[in-house]
């Protein structure tokens, strides 16, 4: 009897065990199968190569070079000091490196390891590998480092990449493309690197490997190679760009050179500039502070984000607004004695030229930049009609160029002022708006686009910097930037304005010296924009003012007048007089570009 009880117990226990094993192997198979694979199968992402950026002549603007970094596993709890001492004879780690490592770990997102030493030499790598068993927490990673051969030049248009930070991760998650960044450490942050990120980043591949308990690779199960990002070419001409940058001679400002026939940006200058290499491995806090705290703001992309009063460069567009509303149509003329008094006698505005310009019609008013003529014109025309025309030329709104962070400028009016300052609009403000000195603010890209529209009214292209994407079947070269409506009509009004602008570079014009010694004819307009309002009885004395309060010098032009090939807008901050400071910069760019063009056509 007791024997049977015992055997029953034995059988019962065996059955229980069997049920347990059944549960593990059959019921929970999926769970343990997954865990087993997770144990032994690792997916190693293979990041893609970032596409190369060329200029229009296949000059390299951004490329990659192979580099080796020493990386520290962020999950292991180790004493960095100890590792540093142990490593002393192999790879020297400085306190700076350690601080940098900690800073990066805080600021950016890393999967497993973060770099502690960059650009290892072959000797360092060899030494380390022979001692690697001592440092399970360290590994050498091979990767591509972004290199910008031009350095400071063109930095704003090319932009830069930076280490992926926590915000980037969040954004990528939202866009559901985080998977494309597995194994990738960098992401475009500004300029073309940012705008065309999706094209030049590429698609990662992966390596499926079997590892043992020590994480040693046993064998490779599968390789899916990454797909490199596409190489792209930009519309800019880096040689022309360099000429333009050099012409600034360390002055602050911006220059945009655009082909009025197709919207291609040929030069895109924002001075001062910065070295995009500083960002490549995660910018150091000190460098970042340096760049941001500088009074001259090198990181600011003045072409798109710099807001400037247009000064007299606005006059050709104001003139066109008047003509379109049948005001001041030639041969109408005024007698300019050097000042303009408001119709109600409330205020008198001076012309820039003491004693005035004598008999002035609309054409001459542009040529000599007669303020008196435009004061009266503005007051009679009124802000709504003026702004309507200006808007058609692209002022007061974004040009939608293919670079981010563009600002829309400002076409001020009564409502805006009420909202902004809770003050009424005074008629005197209309008068100074007509000479580009009111609240109106423009960006250099807007000014360049408006000039291009004067040169080629039937332009239907947005300004753009992308020329082509490698291996893209569509051969329509002019595809990029296509798609804006024709907003300006070719008319006899336009001819009058153009005539005025052509005369600017002739004898008697405000930039007559620019037109001398030129093999082509240029239509232009100079501008000088006050940075601050002079008080009554205070006269502008360029010598005595501190630099940052000096007038901005502006210059817009296109050439040749018969068949415009290039339109340029130049702003030199605190440069003083537009014609003499900004004009020569534009001239150098025209010379370089048009001479080449002429040679090409011969």
């Amino acid at each position, binding site marked *: 009897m007791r024997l049977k009880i*015992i*055997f029953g117990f034995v059988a019962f226990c065996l059955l229980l*065990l069997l049920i*347990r094993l059944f549960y*593990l192997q059959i019921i929970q*198979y999926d769970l343990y199968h997954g865990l087993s694979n997770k*144990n032994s199968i690792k997916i190693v992402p293979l990041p893609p190569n970032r596409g190369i950026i060329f200029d229009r002549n296949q000059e390299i603007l951004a490329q990659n070079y192979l580099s080796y970094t020493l990386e520290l596993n962020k999950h292991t709890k180790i004493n960095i000091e100890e590792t540093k001492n142990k490593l002393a004879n192999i790879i020297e780690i400085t306190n700076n490196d350690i601080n940098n490592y900690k800073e990066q770990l805080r600021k950016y997102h890393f999967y497993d390891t973060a770099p502690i030493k960059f650009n290892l030499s072959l000797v360092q790598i060899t030494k380390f590998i022979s001692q690697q068993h001592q440092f399970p927490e360290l590994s050498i990673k091979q990767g591509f480092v972004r290199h910008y051969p031009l350095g400071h030049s063109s930095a704003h248009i090319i932009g830069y990449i930076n280490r992926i930070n926590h915000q980037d991760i969040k954004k990528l998650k939202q866009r559901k493309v985080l998977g494309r960044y597995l194994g990738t450490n960098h992401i475009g942050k500004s300029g073309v690197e940012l705008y065309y990120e999706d094209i030049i980043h590429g698609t990662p591949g992966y390596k499926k490997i079997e590892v043992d*308990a020590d994480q040693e690779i*046993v064998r490779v199960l599968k390789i899916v190679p990454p797909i490199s990002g596409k190489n792209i070419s930009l519309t800019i001409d880096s040689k022309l760009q360099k000429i333009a940058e050099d012409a600034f001679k360390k002055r602050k400002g911006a220059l945009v050179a655009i082909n009025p026939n197709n919207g291609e940006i040929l030069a895109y200058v924002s001075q001062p500039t910065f070295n995009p290499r500083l960002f490549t491995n995660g910018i150091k806090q000190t460098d970042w502070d340096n760049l941001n705290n500088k009074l001259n703001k090198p990181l600011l992309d003045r072409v798109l984000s710099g807001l400037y009063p247009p000064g007299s460069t606005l006059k050709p567009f104001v003139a066109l607004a008047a003509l379109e509303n049948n005001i001041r149509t030639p041969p109408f003329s005024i007698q300019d004695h050097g000042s303009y008094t408001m119709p109600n006698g409330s205020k008198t505005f001076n012309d820039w030229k003491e004693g005035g310009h004598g008999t002035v019609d609309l054409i001459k008013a542009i040529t000599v930049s007669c303020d008196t003529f435009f004061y009266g014109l503005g007051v009679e025309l009124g802000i709504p009609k003026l702004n309507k025309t200006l808007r058609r030329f692209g002022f007061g709104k974004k040009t939608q160029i293919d670079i981010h962070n563009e600002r829309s400028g400002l076409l001020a009016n009564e409502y805006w002022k009420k909202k902004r300052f809770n003050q009424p609009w005074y008629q005197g403000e209309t008068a100074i708006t007509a000479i580009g000195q009111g609240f109106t603010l423009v960006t250099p890209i807007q000014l360049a686009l408006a000039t291009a529209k004067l040169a080629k009214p039937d332009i239907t292209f947005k300004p753009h910097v992308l020329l082509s994407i490698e291996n893209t079947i569509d051969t329509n070269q002019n595809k990029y930037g296509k798609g804006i409506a024709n907003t300006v009509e070719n008319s006899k009004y336009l001819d009058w304005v153009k005539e005025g602008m052509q005369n600017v570079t002739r004898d008697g014009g405000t930039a007559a010296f620019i037109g001398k010694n030129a093999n082509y004819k240029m239509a232009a307009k100079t501008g000088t924009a006050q940075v601050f309002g002079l008080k009554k009885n205070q006269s502008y004395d360029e010598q005595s003012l501190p630099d940052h309060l000096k007038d901005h010098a502006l210059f817009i032009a296109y050439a040749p007048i018969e068949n415009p090939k290039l339109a340029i807008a130049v702003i030199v901050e605190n440069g003083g007089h537009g014609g003499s400071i900004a004009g020569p910069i534009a001239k150098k760019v025209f010379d370089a570009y048009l001479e080449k063009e002429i040679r090409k056509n011969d």
Partner: protein
Amino acid sequence: MIRRYFAALDIPLLFLILIIILIGIITLFSASSGSLTLIGSQLNNVLIGLLLLIFLANNHLQKIIYYAPYLYAFGLIALILVNVVGFTSHGAQRWINLGFVNFQPSELMKIALPLFISWIYHHQKNKNTYKIHFLAMFAIFLPCFLIIKQPDLGTAIMISFSGLIIIFLAGLSWRFILGSLFIGLVSIPIIWSSLYTYQQNRVLTLLAPFKDPLGSGYHTIQSMIAIGSGGSFGKGWANGTQANLSFLPETTTDFIFAVYAEEFGFIGILFIFILYFLALYRIFYLATKMQNTFSRLVTISLGIAIFINIIVNIGMISGIMPIVGIPLPFFSYGGTSMVVSLASIGIIMGLYSNKTLIAN
């Protein structure tokens, strides 16, 4: 002559056990990544064990009864010696170096104790006196105490269990059993507090292995992963990733059954379970055919010892029992375990083949 030696063997039981041993060796090949040294060594263990089995099966029962107290005394002395001159391995002092082999007295006690307890009851006419029961219990307590000191809790529990089974079979009253069970349950907290921290940890690990997956729960989890990922049909011989990529600990000894489960799946497990079940059944069957108390008690006790080894080992690798270093009988790599297990079978066969002798 040779035939006479084989006449004493119970062929069905031997056949079942040889199949289990064969499967064990096949699994060992995979678990040791094809180490021929280990296979050879295990074959050597099996050979020694089988020779001992044949020898014991042909021995006269009286001799065994006669030797039982001496064997027990020898085991006790060896256990005391182990605490004095034994050497430490894996944190426990269990072995004595005899020069040619490392001897583990607690393994010897697995056989000596049941023999001795059975001997006590065999020599008493009025079996149901409490005096005898207490004597038997003291005989269990002594070696268990020494083994716990090593410390080797698992073996101590197993030995005491196989001893207690004999007391139960000898006719201990139900009232006493239920009373002891009650006292046992009440004394769990006291026993708990007297355990070493690592022993406590093992029990805790069992209750929640995933709480500390890289610490004390690691072995249990890896073992459960190995078993679970085997599925119905297994990953195939020598294809177990858990085993071959060294995620599993002690693949050749304590955890060999996890390797088997991973590579041969539930089908393989079912097969092995049937073999073990049939072998145990055969042992119980033989016991019922025996004429005297001593034979029956020894047989059941030895069968139960094998059974407990199976339960504890498989319970451990499948995560329902604490991790105690107990090999799987006839399956795990290791000399002592194999030889002692085969010797137990030899004793059972010896008792069976001599049943008529006893009857007289």
